[in-house]
């Protein structure tokens, strides 16, 4: 375990001053900034009477976030993680160190999860800031003093956990091809396919639609346990397969 943490800490150091950290914070903050500017220009937010302000806003933001921005952000983050060691050929340096290859791969997968989680936390913090500032600047919006934190957290956390499957797959793509364009185009293609496929009966078989399906169930007050377990099981499978594959892959660059 100590050995793995040493490898993971090396991955963390590689992220220092990198674009990864910047996009992980800037993209969620940017979305909330646009929403905030939009809200300031409106006279009403169109929230149904009796619905908590925070729940309504969380639902609105989560639709944009889960369906489009989060999978695209994951694509970008994992592509950047892969590129870190392929752009300058440092992967061969990593692989010639006395480090188990699977650990180096697992550390990158953990970094991808951490980066996505940081983005989620940033989004939630900005969401709170969004509400508080609107409460002050736009009193007519009647921002509720009660914040259903647990509900809000679960609203974003459950789709995030379901998205681990996508993170795992995208990390494998980025490490296997080591090409920023391949990684990005794969992620963008799957995200767009998921959008078009969402209303189709087969969407439940397409992993990129799982987070959206989970979100809709949460909105409808239905359980998401089966989706969570399925996603985690598939994520574990992909992670294991990717580790095995990449551990035995020739380092020819």
């Amino acid at each position: 375990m100590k050995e793995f943490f040493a490898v993971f800490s090396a991955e963390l150091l590689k992220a220092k001053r990198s674009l990864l950290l910047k996009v992980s914070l800037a993209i969620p903050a940017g979305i909330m900034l646009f929403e905030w500017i939009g809200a300031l220009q409106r006279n009403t937010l169109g929230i149904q009477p009796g619905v908590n302000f925070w729940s309504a806003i969380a639902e609105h933001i989560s639709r944009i976030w889960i369906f489009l921005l989060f999978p695209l952000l994951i694509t970008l983050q994992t592509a950047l993680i892969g590129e870190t060691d392929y752009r300058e050929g440092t992967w061969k340096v990593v692989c010639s160190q006395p480090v188990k290859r699977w650990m180096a791969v697992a550390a990158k997968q953990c970094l991808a999860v951490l980066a996505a989680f940081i983005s989620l936390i940033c989004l939630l913090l900005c969401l709170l800031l969004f509400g508080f500032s609107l409460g002050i600047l736009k009193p007519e919006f009647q921002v509720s003093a009660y914040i259903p934190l647990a509900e809000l957290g679960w609203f974003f956390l459950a789709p995030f956990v379901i998205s681990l499957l996508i993170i795992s797959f995208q990390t494998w793509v980025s490490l296997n091809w080591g090409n920023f364009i391949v990684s990005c185009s794969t992620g963008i293609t799957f995200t767009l396919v998921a959008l078009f496929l969402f209303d189709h009966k087969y969407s439940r078989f397409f992993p990129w639609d799982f987070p959206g399906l989970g979100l809709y169930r949460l909105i409808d007050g239905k359980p998401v346990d089966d989706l969570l377990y399925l996603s985690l099981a598939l994520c574990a499978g992909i992670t294991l397969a990717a580790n095995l594959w990449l551990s035995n892959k020739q380092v020819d660059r």
Partner: protein
Amino acid sequence: MNVIQTEALLKNFGNLTAVDCVDLAVPAASVYGFLGPNGAGKTTTIRMLLGLIQPSGGRVILFGKEYDDNRMEILKRVGALVEQPSLYPHLTGWENLEIIRRYRSLERVEITRVLELVDLAKDSRRLVRHYSTGMRQRLGLAIALMGMPPLLILDEPTNGLDPAGIHEIRALITRLSQSFGVTVFLSSHLLNEVEQIATCIGIINNGNLIFQGTQDDLRLKIPQCVHFELDYPEAAKKVLEAEGRTVKVVSASGVLVPIDGRADTASLSRRLINNGISITEMRIDQPTLEDIFLDLTEAAGAAK
């Protein structure tokens, strides 16, 4: 004991054989110059030694142990610089070394030590993207030196260095080998780069190891020649060829004849004078290692 030993090492890329049954034997504490023209198979061999690519056949034995069964143990004792130095440009020199320190679980003081060794201490807090080519090369070398591994595998380590930098690196390699007993496996396509420091030489061409041994062994591969400056080179050629000699007319007045020791020179000159040919100048031509290297690689290329 050989620190590096390969047996019938083979690497095919589809139909192309990049490394063909190479038997390396690198003695402990030696500086082994691994020479070959570009594309000869040097980097592929190095990648196989480091386990970066899997051989298509043969065995890699480092420190007397099979690589495949002892990867972790072996890599702890190997420092490497493969091709151009691969660094993280958005990090400082110090941070690049810190990454390796974490991978190798070394003490922090190790970073200071290697920075001083490669004379980068004062620039260690600068971002690598602002480093010159020579500084990047030295940092790549510092990475290889982290933890003072008993075996250093260096692929063209003086690329991009100025003459002073090349001299420093040569001195450092010699010191590492002589004072600390480090075995250095040094690949290059320039013979003069390794000539001054290598105790053993291996020459690879078209994937085949065409020579392996000491520099003296290499010199024996091509005999000395005597160079005559005379008035009738064509006539001299006829006279000496009639005796079964190989004669090469090298200029309007010069011929080159391989000899078997200095006594042979006297008999050759006597023969020429007896046939009415005046010798205006005579000198022994000692082929440089570069001549031998070119001769060997060209001959191997022609044989292919």
